[in-house]
């Protein structure tokens, strides 16, 4: 598998990989867009027509000031309104595990966009397994820095869990990338057992349209 080249630029590392997958001039929805960093960057570098959804008022204000069209809302309730295939790309970065109804969110995402890019922390990573197995503790690490009683992450899953759900929902996985602790893409093949063990984060490109 050929991994997209990482982009150079003043945006967060994990957003760069996602940004690199978006073609020039695309219509893009970023769900959980924070302060609009990625959309502003995409608008500037790739002239995309971007929209954002963000929960926090401070995030929305910052994004609006950047010239990004953002609505205050959340993935669980506010994706229903968009028509089918409203966007070329929908991005859900590090947000799926914090939604109340991940399955519905995922269903909406692939419905309203021709391609969806979803990233989340991989609970199947060996460090998580190690912490549970040998320390008997809920995993806490760089990607999941919260203690169990304060974490917003209520629906954690492993890479393989996620692939199972996609398969159940008839969602086509066009591309799967696992990032290791250093942010490097690591090998992804077969059942993805290796990636599920060593990947810290997973990035998937999904579509409901088979054969594209």
């Amino acid at each position, binding site marked *: 598998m050929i991994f997209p080249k990482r982009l150079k630029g003043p945006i967060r590392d994990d957003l760069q990989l996602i940004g690199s997958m978006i073609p020039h001039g695309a219509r893009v929805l970023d769900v959980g867009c924070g302060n609009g960093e990625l959309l502003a960057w995409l608008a500037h570098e790739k002239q995309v027509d971007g*929209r954002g959804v963000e929960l926090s008022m401070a995030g929305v204000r910052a*994004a*609006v*000031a950047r010239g*990004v*069209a*953002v609505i205050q809302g959340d993935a669980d309730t506010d994706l229903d309104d*968009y028509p089918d295939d409203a966007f070329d790309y929908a991005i859900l970065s590090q947000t799926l595990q914090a939604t109340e109804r991940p399955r519905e969110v995922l269903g909406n995402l692939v419905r309203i966009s021709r391609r969806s890019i979803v990233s989340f922390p991989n609970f199947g990573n060996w460090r998580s397994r190690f912490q549970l197995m040998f320390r008997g503790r809920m995993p806490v690490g760089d990607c999941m820095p919260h203690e169990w009683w304060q974490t917003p992450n209520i629906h954690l899953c492993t890479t393989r869990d996620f692939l199972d759900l996609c398969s159940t929902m008839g969602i086509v996985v066009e591309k799967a990338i696992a990032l290791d602790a250093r942010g490097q893409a690591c090998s992804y093949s077969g059942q993805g057992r290796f990636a599920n063990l060593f990947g810290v984060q997973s990035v998937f490109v999904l579509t409901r349209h088979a054969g594209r």
Partner: protein
Amino acid sequence: MVVPDPKTVNAVVELCTDAPLRLDSGAEMGPVTVAYQTQGTLNASRSNVVLVCHALTLDQYMRGPHPVTGRPGWWEDMVGPGKVIDTTRFFVVCANVLGGCMGTSGPKDINPATGKPWGLDFPVITIRDMIRVQALLLDHLGIENIFCVIGGSMGAMQALQWAVSYPERVGAAVVIAGSWRHSAQNIAFNEVARQAIMADPDWRGGDYLNQGTRPAHGLAVARMTAHITYLSEPALHRKFGRKLQDREQLSYGFEADFQVESYLRHQGASFVRRFDANSLLYITRAMDYFDLSDEYGGVLANAFTRTKTRFCIVSFSSDWLYPTTDSRAIVRALNAAAANVSFVEVDTDKGHDAFLLDEPAFSDTLSGFLESIARRAGLPPKLKGPSDARGDDPQAPLAVTPVRDSQPEGTGP
């Protein structure tokens, strides 16, 4: 006393002198007088026009002094040199609405057919009729395109109607604490206000101006009721609690024992000095009739099909008159129409009137939105702070010659 900025112009113009204005009701009107205020300078490309639409009982005096009350304008904190709506870069226009009582044709003006005040012979108007008149005013000023239309409350309805009726003329629309239609509760409160006025014997079937009376009590009660809906329970209680007014103990009578009673009475009394009762009837009616989806088979999204306007929708968390759900319905419709829309619910306990008060989260949002669309439109950058903003306009000014023959002084009741 507030000294007007040299670039502030209050003017009155007579429109529809050749052909009458056809209203939604089917009635025709002409000529129509429009009183308006402008601030700043129209640039050479006529691309810096900000149209401000005022709320129900406000008027064109964004900047004061108000000719009747002598007080500062209602949006003086927001509009001016170096302010959020920066008059060193924008040409800001605000017109008194049709049916109003601060110089634009309304029920207290003289009906040319009878030589007497219109009273209830004035035709019933709609929000769309108000927009038609504003469009004629902009035509008169030689302005085709609006850089941004901004309105709160009833002004928000006008901003929406502008974007729907004249999509090609409106670059951006800021819709603050508004709705796309009047709800049953909105209509109900307006009906209470109207009934209070009509129950006053001095209203005289709307003919009070001819009969030398004024329905001051009814109008004051209408204002008191409405004023409560502009605030929130926490804000009202924080301000007044159960504090007594000028007394140590309860009077065991019906004086204004409580500060909140005294406050409301004061609100009612001062409103009566500046507002016409029939105007309130007509404008509240226009609001009640407002339903943007009406023309589009009840599907609001269809009102925005193929819109190119950039929208910024703002609601206030404690606004129970036009609650956030109303704004969200607009956002949903705009999303369904694939429009360019931003939406913020400002977290505040100040209620509906928060857009008139010092609410930094709101002014920052508006400022950020205007800055981003100005940058996109290639307007010159904002100057820093009011003190630096007195310099010359960076773009060549174009002389606009509004009709200055009558300064609307003392035109209020």
